[in-house]
């Protein structure tokens, strides 16, 4: 595949791997967090960490949109989906996330009209085709997917489609990163920054990380060479005593982001005072809801939803996994009570979740050399 295989080139990977080994300070242990679940997926799928020395440790961060959805929101979604007038649309991964009483997939088998879509525009098309039903779209994701939800809602408004509604769970990446950096139980050396989020918000919002916390950030693409090069660039900053935001993903990410996308998000959404994150608790100004101009399309206001906060199952340590405090396999229920077939926590559901990635791809003994 042209324009893709180039970024999966094993020869270049080997060469970069040798450069990493050469720049690593012998005996020093490095902890680098990849913020985005997409990077976690790439690392496991291609075996990127096989090309790193054992003292360069990759720690998985909170950037998996499915993983951060708390159980109470799944319960709310199921309550809406069960309404007879509703066609409930959502992305595939979300179907398997357990609420306090089952998943959307189970609600579907129980008679709820739940349909998997690949884009919010698919949901809008369903609304157009079913004018006598309410079509609700379960919007999730960071700044990456918020613009496409925003543009879909703008289009619904422009076309005068009156039966399309949004159950909004969009979140923003900076508040949880700040919360993470404030947490005392994590010592990190640098961040592989979220590439897709940055195509929208640009690199500037991450400048507080080197400025206030003294950690390098390298915004990275999602192919294995991208991630490997970004790790190298972080190590290079550390070796040279630099600390700044660098952009490895220049082929896609402009430093100032995408102003048109930001404008659409600004028009359709506003910040919630606070939003609950799975395992991380309430973080202020970290979630989006529909702005006053679009409030009539807000499913949360249209239907009565329980809106209850449901505590995570006691055994589940998703919060600590999302914060990178523990490795997936260090969770008490990992791989035994909690598996991709019967997940207890969200991190075991999405292919971008650290637990699912480790379970599906990384579950075997590796041999890596220390430098």
């Amino acid at each position, binding site marked *: *595949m042209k324009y*893709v295989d180039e970024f*999966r*080139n*094993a020869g270049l*990977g*080997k060469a970069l*791997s040798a450069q990493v080994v050469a720049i690593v300070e012998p005996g020093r242990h490095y902890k680098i967090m990849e913020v985005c679940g*997409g990077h976690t*997926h790439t690392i496991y*799928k*291609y*075996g*990127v*960490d*096989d*090309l790193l020395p*054992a*003292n360069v440790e990759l720690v998985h961060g909170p950037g998996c*949109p*499915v993983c951060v959805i708390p159980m109470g929101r799944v319960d709310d979604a199921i309550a809406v989906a069960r309404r007879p007038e509703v066609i409930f649309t959502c992305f*595939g*991964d979300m*179907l*398997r996330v357990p609420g306090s009483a089952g998943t959307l*997939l*189970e609600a*579907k*088998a129980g008679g709820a009209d739940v349909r*998997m879509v*690949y884009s919010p525009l*698919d949901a809008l098309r369903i609304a157009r085709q079913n004018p006598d039903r309410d079509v609700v779209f379960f919007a*999730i*994701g960071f700044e*990456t*997917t918020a613009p496409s939800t925003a543009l879909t809602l703008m289009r619904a408004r422009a076309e005068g489609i009156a039966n399309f509604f949004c159950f909004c769970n969009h979140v923003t990446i900076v508040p949880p990163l700040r919360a993470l950096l404030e947490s005392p139980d994590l010592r990190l050396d640098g961040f592989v920054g979220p590439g897709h989020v940055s195509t929208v918000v640009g690199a500037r919002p991450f400048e507080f990380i080197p400025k206030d916390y003294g950690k390098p950030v390298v915004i990275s693409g999602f192919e*294995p*060479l991208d991630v490997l090069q970004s790790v190298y660039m972080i190590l290079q900053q550390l070796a040279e005593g630099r600390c700044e935001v660098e952009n490895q993903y220049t082929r896609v990410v402009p430093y100032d982001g995408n102003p048109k996308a930001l404008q659409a998000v600004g028009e359709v959404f506003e910040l919630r005072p606070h939003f609950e994150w799975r395992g991380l608790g309430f973080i202020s100004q970290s979630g989006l809801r529909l702005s006053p101009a679009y409030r009539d399309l807000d499913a949360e206001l249209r239907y009565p939803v329980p809106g209850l906060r449901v505590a995570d199952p006691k055994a589940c340590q998703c919060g600590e996994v999302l914060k990178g405090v523990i*490795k997936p*396999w*260090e969770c008490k229920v*990992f*791989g*035994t009570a909690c598996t*991709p*077939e019967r997940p207890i926590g969200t991190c075991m559901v999405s*292919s*971008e979740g650290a637990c699912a990635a480790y*379970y*599906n*791809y*990384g*579950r*075997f*003994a*590796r*041999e*890596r*050399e*220390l430098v």
Partner: protein
Amino acid sequence: MTALGHGALDAREQAVLGRIETARARPIRFHDGQITMAHGAGGKATRSLIEGLLVPAFGSSALSALADAGSLAVENLGLALTTDTFVVKPLRFPGGSIGELAVNGTVNDLAVVGARPLALALALVLEEGLDADLLREEIETIARTARAAGVEIITGDTKVVERGHADGMYVCTTGLGRLDPRATLSPSGLRPGDRILVSGPIGEHGTAIMLARGEFELDGEIESDTRSLWPVVEALLDAAGPGLRCLRDATRGGVASVLNELARASAVAMLVRESAVPIPPAVAGACEILGIDPMYVANEGKLVAVVGPESSADALSALRAVPGCEAAAEIGEVKTDPSGMVLVETAFGGKRVMDLLVGDPLPRIC
């Protein structure tokens, strides 16, 4: 798992991995409250339905072997019996139709246990309102495909259900075959050092269906690979004889699922070299966009063969001589550790597990 030296997994991680494999090796149980679409997707949920509910209920030894067809001996004559139901949507797609699948699917389930297909039974469930011309064409297709595969349709059944209770038509075929005396195929016969072959490019059927459903607004010139595999099996039996350990038809769940079933049945490991797997560029492109791994995509005319190392070169050249199998390839090797698992050497130079899918392959979010 072998003990590891410097910089390897720490002992706690090793212990966790050990516990997980112990849990996975236990017989699987079926304790779902209701059937979901995942039970039909060929992954772990399907396995729980088959191994947790059906096999324990019927308890026949032929069924417990979990082969594509059951074997039985009647007065020293080795026979194989299999059945399959076809519920594809759309009924027609680039490269084939439900009728072609219904014949080839069952013929192939016989072929991969080493049985020459003899006869088919055909059952049709038709939906009220089905266009008669469409039915007529499918029946002609079934007749033509059966002739090409060298089987006769000798009995059948028809049922009609009310509109809305079936998707146009469902087809069920049952096949009887005669076991070839040269075939000593068994999923438990794999040995470390054996080679893994595929009979051609993978992922075409599933991708063609996904695109034909029109849900993705993607176009591509990909056709289903539906075909009879008996000529392929015959070529392999000729070339490799007793060196041919086992064959599997890589349908629902794709090559990845087949390899997992074999690794588990034989308590061996499989190592696949990702760069050696033949994947047509159009399939690779469509799967890349959808975030699906072609190794899990269904085929309807590709088999996975495990052959002893001494026969692998002959088997591969015999395969490549069969029309349509020119791109057959050796994609990996049977290993000892980690038992029951399939590992992949990625084209990038890393290594990872290739497990059974949990449910339907789902396109990713972003």
